């Protein structure tokens, strides 16, 4: 019984591994999934949501007047007025006690929230 399962699993394993490689090379539309837009387009499409991302993810720890948040765990961003690259680096990789969000936010969300913070902080 186990030997039969083992043989079946051998085929299943190789078929799925080959499928994974094929989807990597061709893209998720191979299985009918909508291919996500390239990063730059995605940023444009989600720029308006930068404020939403900030409010739901960052506002608990940071103060930012435009977003109406008053978190005090991290730096006051109206005072710090970071540029987009700085925000992006911290959101992706964390640092100074702030956890990284590179695995939990999409690239588009990170770009959007960075653009948003840089555009309104200190303003």
């Amino acid at each position, binding site marked *: 019984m*186990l*030997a039969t*399962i*083992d043989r079946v*699993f*051998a085929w*299943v*394993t190789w078929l*799925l*591994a080959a499928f*994974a490689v094929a*989807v*990597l090379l061709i*893209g*998720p539309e191979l299985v009918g*999934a909508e*291919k*996500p*837009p*390239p*990063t730059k387009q*995605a*940023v444009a499409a*989600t720029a308006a949501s930068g404020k939403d991302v900030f409010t739901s993810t960052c506002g608990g720890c940071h103060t930012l007047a435009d977003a109406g948040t008053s978190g005090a765990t991290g730096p006051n961003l109206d005072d710090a007025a970071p540029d987009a690259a700085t925000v992006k*680096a911290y959101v*992706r*990789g*964390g*640092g100074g006690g702030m*956890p*990284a969000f*590179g*695995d*939990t936010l*999409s*690239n*588009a969300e990170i770009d959007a929230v960075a653009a948003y913070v840089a555009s309104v902080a200190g303003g």
Partner: protein
Amino acid sequence: MAAAAETAPEPPRPIGGAGVLAAGAMGAAVAIALGLYGRVHEPASDLAITLGFADTITMKVWLTTVAVLFALVQVFSALWMYGRLPLASRPSWLANAHRISGRLAFLFTLPVAYHCLYQLAFQDTTTRVLAHSVLGCLFYGAFATKVTIIHMPGRAGIWLPVIGGTVFALLVATWVTSGLWFITTSGIPTP
């Protein structure tokens, strides 16, 4: 007696150094190919794979954790097969169970690796992220080396537990820098 000795099949010869090097080269090629793919591929933005979980990150944490559990079964069954556990002589199903657990561990990593490579690509923003990227590539390279050695004619000898242990260590290290890191920083995600 002498006739029996003459007709007994010869034990398989051990895999030579060239074979081990070839298997290692195969694994290196796989690891480098994955790393290069992750480096040149433009990360996708909104690719969501959930497979029934609440969200993508939850799926990744759970699947990798289950993969590690199956890998632990692999190690346990391997130790049993090699007579390193104080247990009765190995049952007939042990080898099959060992292989099935290994295949399941590998299968559970596939959706995770696909999302990592296609959505996030190879990243080096922090030491943890860089380590995770490198370890993930090395894991699949070591896995390819192990599979190559298993399918080579001849006796793998010491090389099999060595590469098997390496595959296990790399899987655990990859999980520690992602799944376990997420659990320790954000808690166990609800499936």
